[in-house]
């Protein structure tokens, strides 16, 4: 469903609109199963026209939050309002007209036709003795076309693949024509093409203006790219909420997921791109990095994620290493290429190197140091002006451009331990 193939107008019309009232407003919601508090103190808002992403580690309570919204679990505390009315005051049918859910996984025991499953989305709009009308058929057709399931509408739901089934459930939710869409891991079993198309479809759904969606998404990059707002859940509570650029920081993500994270930029979309590393539990050090290009950027990212304080220089402005330093909030000393850096610039870089607990010199791909016997000699890096920077450092550790993260951190740890 790229945008040109399915403009928003081809989605089933939503009859209900709540004007400026938030589609969903949950405050201080708590749910516990027995003695186990699954979520507590959760606040959420979905405004018309916005897509809210619910991210967090496994077991953070994302699904439980969605279930509390649909009324599948009753909150022990707090209020959930849908379209301005308390959810508890709405009948099941009224909720079904306001909220459509795409569940994470279903086991369908009986082999309904795909089209029949999508038709079930019309249930909240039908009285007990109503047959499907023209309007219902139109909504079902539009939903099936939008979710790209019309091709196999006569196949049995038990015969289609997991990804196709997930799109059938999406079509069912679209046929429901409710102004609020709830999605639980909508892209979990989709191929990369359909994952993007599904999120584009949800984007088109909310861009219409009156409708909104909230999606539990495990893919942080997708959340950053498509969501207007991201809510980070961890340990059953909201850890951060706001626009993706401000919420998806290394510290928030690292704390929520209990991992070492580096947040850079996706080169294709410009959206925040999160990379997580395993725990290293290193002591934080000041580390100066000499080098250029992607290998150096990678070193800076790994050091920053591990909690070190990296700095870079001298590098040309716009170099990948300078970009990584900027994303990590680290200092980068830059000088235009093909000319000698000014004395002030060199002095700044020398000071950073002298002040650092360790200085790493990253080899270039062409000037790869040989590591077969003895300490490698770094070629092509600490030459020119950077030779002066290296000279200012207490000790320079040569690093191969394809050293693993663990080797990198070990090198820093070994160097700084010697120094003490």
């Amino acid at each position: 469903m790229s945008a040109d193939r399915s403009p928003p107008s081809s989605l089933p019309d939503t009859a209900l609109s709540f004007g400026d009232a938030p589609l969903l407003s949950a405050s201080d919601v708590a749910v516990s199963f027995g003695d186990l508090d699954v979520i507590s103190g959760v606040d959420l808002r979905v405004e018309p026209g916005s897509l809210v992403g619910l991210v967090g580690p496994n077991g953070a309570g994302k699904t439980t939050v969605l279930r509390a919204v649909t009324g599948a679990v009753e909150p022990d505390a707090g209020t959930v309002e849908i379209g301005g009315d308390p959810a508890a005051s709405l009948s099941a049918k009224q909720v079904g007209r306001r909220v459509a859910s795409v569940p994470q996984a279903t086991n369908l025991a009986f082999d309904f036709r795909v089209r029949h499953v999508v038709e079930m989305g019309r249930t909240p709009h039908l009285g007990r003795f109503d047959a499907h009308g023209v309007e219902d058929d139109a909504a079902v057709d539009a939903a099936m076309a939008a979710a790209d399931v019309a091709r196999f509408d006569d196949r049995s739901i038990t015969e289609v693949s997991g990804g196709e089934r997930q799109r059938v459930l999406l079509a069912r939710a679209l046929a429901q024509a409710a102004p609020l869409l709830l999605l639980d891991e909508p892209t979990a079993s989709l191929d990369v093409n359909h994952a993007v198309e599904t999120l584009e479809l949800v984007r088109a759904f909310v861009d219409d203006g009156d409708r909104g969606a909230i999606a539990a998404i495990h893919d942080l990059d997708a959340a950053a790219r498509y969501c207007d707002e991201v809510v980070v859940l961890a340990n059953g509570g909201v850890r951060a909420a706001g626009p993706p650029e401000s919420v998806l920081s290394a510290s928030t993500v690292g704390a929520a997921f209990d991992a070492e994270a580096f947040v850079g930029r996706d080169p294709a979309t410009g959206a925040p791109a999160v990379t997580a590393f395993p725990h290293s539990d290193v002591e934080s050090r000041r580390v100066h990095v000499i080098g250029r290009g992607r290998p150096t950027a990678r070193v800076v990212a790994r050091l920053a994620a591990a909690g070190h304080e990296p700095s870079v220089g001298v590098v040309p402005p716009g170099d990948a290493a300078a970009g990584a330093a900027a994303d990590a909030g680290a200092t980068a000393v830059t000088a235009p290429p093909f000319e000698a850096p000014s004395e002030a610039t060199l002095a700044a870089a020398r000071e950073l190197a002298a002040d650092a607990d360790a200085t790493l010199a990253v080899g270039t791909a062409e000037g790869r140091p040989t590591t077969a016997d003895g300490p490698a000699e770094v070629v092509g890096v600490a030459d020119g002006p950077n030779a002066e920077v290296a000279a200012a450092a207490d000790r320079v550790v040569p690093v191969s451009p394809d050293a693993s993260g663990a080797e990198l951190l070990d090198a820093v740890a070994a160097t700084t331990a010697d120094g003490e």
Partner: protein
Amino acid sequence: MRPWVRSAAWSAAGAALLAVVVVGSAAIGPVRIPPETVMKSVLNAVAVPAGIETSAGGVGPLPIPGVGPLTIPSVDLAFASPFAFPVDSVHQQIVVGVRLPRILLAALVGFALASAGTVMQGFFRNPMADPSIIGVSSGAAVGAVAFIVFPAALSTTIALPLLGPVEVALSRGAGTSLFAFVGALVAAFGVYAIATRNGRTPVATLLLAGVAVQTFLGAVVSYLQLQAGESLRQIVAWLMGHLSGAAWSEVAVTAAVVPPLFAVLLAYARDLNVLLLGEEEARGLGIAVERTKRVLLAASALVTAAGVAFAGVIGFVGLIVPHMLRLVVGPDHRVLLPSAALAGGTFLVAADTVARSAAAEYPVGIITAAVGAPFFVYLLVTREVTEL
């Protein structure tokens, strides 16, 4: 094709088949009667209201002040038979008086068991569920067997405050049926009450509560059989299911109970479809899940109770017929429910015809199991059942 159109088409085909089997069954017996004679006899027995007639024996005379004694005549509907085919009166009596009530009771009981079985299989999302799963059959068995073992204890004199002592006695057949009906409903309600917490009835709990109650009631029936003495044979016959000696009054009672409840179940066919997706999804699609479950449980318990009250425990109809029809017409309950119900009626009429045609009459329950199980196996072997 539209689901309701498909439903009507399958129902028409099912009804036609049922009619053919009913006529064929009425032709078969110790006395062979040609099918056209059967049809003529049936038409001869049809009576339609033709007017109102009054007769002298009404209420009164009542002393009305100022008017004098007033007698209100009784008013009756007058029936007329529109058909008068020349049919041998013995044949007429055999068809209408003997065979037809039994055949129609079989049709109604089969209809009831198959529709309740269809609903239970959908409700429990399990094709191995059947109407007895919520304890209905075992409850009916306890009620019926208790009445058979202790009939005297149940014929008592009750002193009513205004009318004086009233002798309450039930005929053996009516008593057995009444106690079976009540026992079935009590057991079903007991299972429901055990499985319900805070207004929610999880299907898995209901299933297990049903198993527990069935096991317990099975023990009660076994104990009662030990105490039975002379009436043991009668108990065994009831437990195996039987349709012999069916009377028009039994047909009338069953016909008054089963079709209206079936209409309730049919009205919930679409909800049943959605429930198959899972309760949480059904709720998301606007179904009031707990209320729907209560309606479905109550209606199927009543339908099953009405089915087993007169005919005893007839197994396999409620299990196998819905499963067979699901393979033929698919899982959509709007189509499946009416076609399975009609097929259930047809199946039981045919099975009972075999039961009463044998040299010695067999309980029909033996026939349904003996015919049903191999057919079930045949279906499993020839058709690919990919998932339960």
